[in-house]
């Protein structure tokens, strides 16, 4: 079986949209998505991916119009929406600016964001932007000054909402309950970020498909924090697609969880059954029948994923991406039971 035939073999799209990080990770190429999409074989695969996911991945910072045109062309008639990914404070991050910094680096980032919003919104005329993931993970140089950090996020939020008023804004890395090996419980508790309108869509990282039980725990703890305490409405799972985090020897202690397998090919990878079951938990409406048993499926409006390197893995039968995505779709529809 080829990857293409496997994808074609899944009749129905995922029950919820499955957005993802942009394709542009071809190493060393600013326009990596354009390069990858230039091959007809990949375009055929990608069209199947669009059919199943109904999400067009695009980078607000770096995406190029040519690749967007290719993708939207492939999505014709497929009920797709665009999922944007945005890293708003790159200069601030590069210069380790604190949250209360409002100097030249902030202005640089602000101007760049405004410029890109104007440009990309022009390209997207006629397309629906379903969600925008704001990745602020790399810029957390200050978690003590909550007010200043919120103000920085609010700047981004207001610009995005003004451009795409119906899009769901998801701040990635702002407040997810995460593993943190330095605690007594192994669960970090990013409580520094309080309730605000910015968090209608809370996010939770689910990078540990090697142990689904831990993912369930993460999700439930995030629900308690985000929905019960901060009054968020939805939880957006951020899943890995083609790599994961697993327990390791070398990291114990102090780290209990282990190393991120950023180059998963050749490594022992997670059990495909876990991908299947994750698909069931995240997408299948019947998984809500026992809320304590499964994830709170009804609070998940859509899913976002980090796919790893598209060009290396997507077209490779048996690759982690292939295994995970196919099995996840099969699990979503319970095709193997």
């Amino acid at each position, binding site marked *: 079986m080829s990857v293409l035939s496997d994808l074609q073999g899944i009749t129905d799209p995922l029950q919820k949209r499955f957005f993802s990080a942009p394709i542009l990770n071809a190493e060393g190429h600013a326009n990596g998505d354009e390069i990858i999409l230039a091959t007809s074989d990949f375009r055929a695969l990608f069209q199947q991916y669009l059919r199943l996911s109904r999400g067009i991945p695009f980078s607000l910072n770096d995406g190029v119009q040519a690749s967007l045109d290719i993708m939207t062309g492939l999505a014709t008639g497929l009920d797709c929406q665009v999922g944007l990914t945005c890293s708003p404070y790159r200069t601030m991050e590069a210069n380790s600016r604190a949250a209360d910094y409002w100097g030249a680096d902030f202005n640089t980032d602000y101007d760049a964001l405004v410029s890109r919003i104007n440009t990309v919104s022009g390209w997207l005329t006629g397309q629906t932007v379903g969600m925008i993931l704001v990745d602020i993970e790399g810029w957390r140089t200050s978690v003590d000054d909550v007010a200043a950090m919120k103000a920085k996020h609010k700047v981004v939020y207001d610009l995005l909402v003004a451009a795409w008023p119906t899009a769901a804004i998801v701040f990635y890395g702002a407040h997810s309950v995460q593993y943190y090996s330095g605690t*007594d419980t192994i669960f970090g508790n990013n409580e520094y970020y309080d309730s605000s309108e910015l968090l209608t869509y809370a996010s939770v990282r689910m990078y540990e498909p090697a142990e689904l039980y831990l993912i369930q725990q993460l999700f439930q703890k995030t629900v308690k924090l985000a929905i019960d305490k901060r009054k968020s409405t939805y939880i957006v799972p951020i899943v890995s697609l083609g790599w994961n985090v697993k327990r390791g020897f070398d990291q114990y202690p*102090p780290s*209990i969880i282990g190393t991120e397998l950023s180059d998963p090919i050749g490594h022992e990878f997670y*059990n495909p*059954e876990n991908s299947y079951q994750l698909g069931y938990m995240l997408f299948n409406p019947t998984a809500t029948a026992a809320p*304590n048993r*499964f994830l709170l499926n009804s609070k998940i409006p859509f899913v976002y994923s980090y796919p790893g390197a598209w060009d290396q893995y997507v077209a490779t039968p048996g690759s982690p991406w292939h295994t995970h995505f196919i099995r996840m779709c099969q699990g979503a529809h319970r095709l193997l039971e």
Partner: protein
Amino acid sequence: MTLLDQLKTLPKLQKLHLGWYFQPPFPQLDLLTEFARITGSVPLSLEWSLPEDVRAAFTVAQATGCGIGVTSQPYQGMGKQTLPASSWGDVFRADLSNFEVRLACLAPVKDLVTHVTFDVEQWHVSTDPKSIAAKYQALIDTMAKYLPRAQAIWYAKGEVTLNGGSPTGWKSTDYVPESFTGLDSCGLYFSEHGVNQEIFRRSGGLDELTVPFVPMGGCYHRAGSSWGKFSAPGMPTENLWLMGLELNNQHPSVAGNVERFPLSRAPLVYLYHETATDAWLPDFVTYCLGAANQQAAKAAA
């Protein structure tokens, strides 16, 4: 490297480890001696071990200073006829008599037996707690006459475990008698460490009165939208290694943090190794190296 050579490289475990009896043929004396040195105990079956097995266990226990752990599967007659716990008729009397006869066969080693593990997994035909407790007490009273030093451990008398069919995801244990003589147990039979830790917590493990059962060579893996059957392979190597470390409490971070490392509260451990083949051995090696906090487990994997 032979099986014996491999066992000789392993350090002694820090806590007492009882074990499932070796299925025939019973291992040779030198092999059994190494196993006893590592675990601190020689395993026997009340129902299946032969007189020569008992003699071998005696020899090894004498030579190593180890105790003997006996496993019993009582009330098999009642189980086969699916009689309820409230039944006190001929089948019950035959089962108890059989139990007593077999205990008498252990007379040569009676002072060496430290624990009798009662495996009642196949006898879940009644949810009447009082009757069940009475049946269990009959075993305790009989055991005490023949094995004065032995402590009882109850296996599967109503264990806390996952149950995909229940609203909570956990199996109900409402029918289990509240308390009676002996240690409780729980099965750490799942491929995910977090699941096993939670089972131990829910089984009262933090009170140091619950004996965890650790599988070697097999476990439950996820399958479909739930869990599959108990099958090979065993737990992921990292998890088994971690289990060895956590259960044996050999790192300051483990000993000082019960919430994160609950398994450290286990008073002793029971190894469930399917001994019909040698498939359990690699897992046993990994577990023992984890218990000693030796990174060589990675290479062994």
